[in-house]
């Protein structure tokens, strides 16, 4: 029997505010335990939550970016459960009336095809604290710095049909929340977390199978592997005559498997009710238009503009806009320049991004800024240096402060375009390799690259490749 996989994702994006959702405590990561947990975060008696306006505008920004319904009167609710890192005994969340309603995104899959993934809702809630189990004997340590950090929980429809689609969607949302500046996307620090609802059903069946919810997926690779493992597990169970139990499962990256978290099952009755401390959150048109006015251009629109205005291919444009800082860098490089934008796109996605990966740097911290790269590309375009030499110059630029022109000058890298100089080098190579010349003239044309290489080497890489090729062909032909 063939099976169809059905996946829905719940993504928790930590909103990049300075202060918490209901208190004025700092949200900065990495502080000493409990130094950023105030009386409200600790749930001390007599405190009242006051909502952070920044959180509301970030949620509205997400709604605008996903063509989603904005709830004009949304409501906070209490989700009740007991756990030591949840001091109040309830988490303030949203249930019946989330701030963001139905929306959708169009995701590009690895095979370049597109798929629309619908978003059911996105609601605001507070994060819990952290439990530390390995620091103290027989006791658990509680750090409440994270308690009250704002989260936007983005719930998708069960629209994905494979782990690959789920990863493409998760990456899309990851890029989007960073683009609109509402989340730093740092998965190691837990700023962007995924839970996956996974089920399988016989191909062609309309009803969904029983699903398992997989938690603890803190990288795209783990998301993909956990789903693949879980799909296999469910199919094995069904094919051997068992059933799938609806439960929460934890992904264990070391063993590459999911396992049941039975301890939490019975607690799944959260007795939500509207939080009496928090009257409805009312959003008016003026608030929405203010947020809209401050929205950056979204990746899709920007990509279309790059194709139109700068003649990039759609694939290049998508790569460049996939990250907002990269797209900004690209626009700064080509501003007012004569070289083709494609040259800039190639350098940014090739040489520059390779170098950034190697040094584990963000593009904002690149040692070669847009103006410096611009000059280098201008020197390729005006024929001063070849693309190959430019890579050497780039390396030097990266490790120092010199401009492309300084390095070309100091190292004598200017391209040789003097025809007689190139001819002289070619003559020498031809004279030194009579047998190869004979073979070439007898029809072994593959040897051309041998001659090109030899002359290039003699010129220390500085011969103009176009001229070199032309003159070499002519000389070899005439013998």
């Amino acid at each position: 029997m063939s099976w169809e996989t059905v996946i829905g994702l719940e993504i928790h994006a930590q909103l990049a505010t300075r202060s918490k959702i209901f208190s004025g405590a700092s949200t900065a990561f990495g502080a000493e335990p409990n130094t950023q947990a105030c009386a409200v975060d600790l749930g001390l008696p007599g405190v009242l939550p006051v909502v952070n306006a920044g959180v509301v505008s970030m949620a509205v920004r997400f709604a605008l970016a996903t063509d989603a319904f904005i709830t004009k009167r949304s409501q906070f609710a209490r989700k009740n459960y007991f756990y030591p890192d949840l001091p109040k005994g309830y988490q303030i969340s949203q249930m019946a009336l989330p701030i963001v309603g139905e929306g959708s995104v169009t995701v590009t899959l690895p095979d370049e095809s597109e798929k629309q993934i619908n978003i059911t809702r996105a609601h605001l809630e507070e994060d819990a604290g952290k439990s530390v189990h390995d620091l103290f004997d027989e006791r658990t340590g509680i750090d409440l710095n994270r308690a009250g950090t704002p989260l936007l929980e983005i719930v998708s429809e069960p629209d994905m049909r494979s782990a690959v689609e789920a990863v493409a969607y998760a990456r899309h949302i990851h890029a989007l929340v960073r683009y609109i500046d509402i989340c730093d996307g740092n998965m190691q620090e837990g700023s962007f977390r995924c839970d996956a609802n996974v089920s399988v059903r016989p191909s062609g069946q309309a009803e969904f199978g029983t699903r398992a919810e997989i938690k603890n997926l803190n990288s795209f690779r783990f998301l993909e592997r956990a789903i693949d493992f879980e799909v296999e597990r469910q199919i094995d169970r069904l094919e051997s005559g068992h059933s799938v139990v609806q439960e929460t499962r934890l992904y264990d990256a070391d063993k590459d498997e999911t396992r049941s978290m039975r301890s939490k099952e019975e607690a799944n009755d959260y007795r939500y009710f509207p939080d009496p401390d928090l009257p409805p959150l009312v959003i008016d048109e003026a608030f929405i238009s203010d947020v809209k006015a401050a929205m950056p251009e979204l990746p899709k629109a920007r990509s279309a503009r790059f194709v139109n205005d700068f003649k990039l291919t759609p694939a290049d444009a998508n790569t460049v806009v996939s990250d907002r800082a990269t797209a900004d860098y690209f626009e700064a490089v080509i501003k007012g320049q004569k070289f083709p934008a494609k040259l800039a796109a190639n350098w940014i996605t090739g040489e520059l991004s390779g170098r950034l990966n190697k040094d584990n740097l963000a593009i904002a911290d690149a040692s070669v800024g847009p103006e410096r790269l611009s000059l280098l590309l201008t020197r390729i375009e005006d024929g001063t240096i070849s693309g190959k030499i430019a890579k050497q110059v780039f390396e030097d630029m990266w490790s120092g402060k010199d401009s492309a022109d300084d390095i070309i000058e100091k190292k004598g890298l200017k391209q040789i375009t003097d025809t007689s100089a190139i001819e002289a080098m070619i003559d020498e190579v031809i004279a030194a390799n009579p047998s190869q010349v004979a073979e070439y003239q007898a029809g072994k044309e593959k040897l051309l690259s041998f001659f090109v290489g030899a002359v290039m080497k003699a010129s220390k890489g500085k011969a103009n490749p176009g001229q070199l090729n032309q003159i070499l062909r002519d000389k070899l032909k005439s013998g």
Partner: protein
Amino acid sequence: MNNIVALTTDDIKQIAHLARIGLDEAAIEPLRDDLTTVLSLVEQLNAIDTAGVEPMAHPGNAELRLRDDVVSEENRRDALQAPAPDVEQGYFLVPRVIE
């Protein structure tokens, strides 16, 4: 509109468990009857025709007031941890919680 909700003894035990309230066996039955009476009282609301009435999530006309996204709290860990029964290296300590 006369579905009177009758709570069972198990319902009471479950609610008590979720709320972490310890109940004497003897208290369960009177509590079940009391709560059933409360529910019947609330049940009267179902007799009202609410077609065309906008759902209300909160009584009163108050709207949420928002504050600016500004850090206004200082580190007051020592004072805030003073009443805690057990503290070490800045952490609140609780009996071991096993996942």
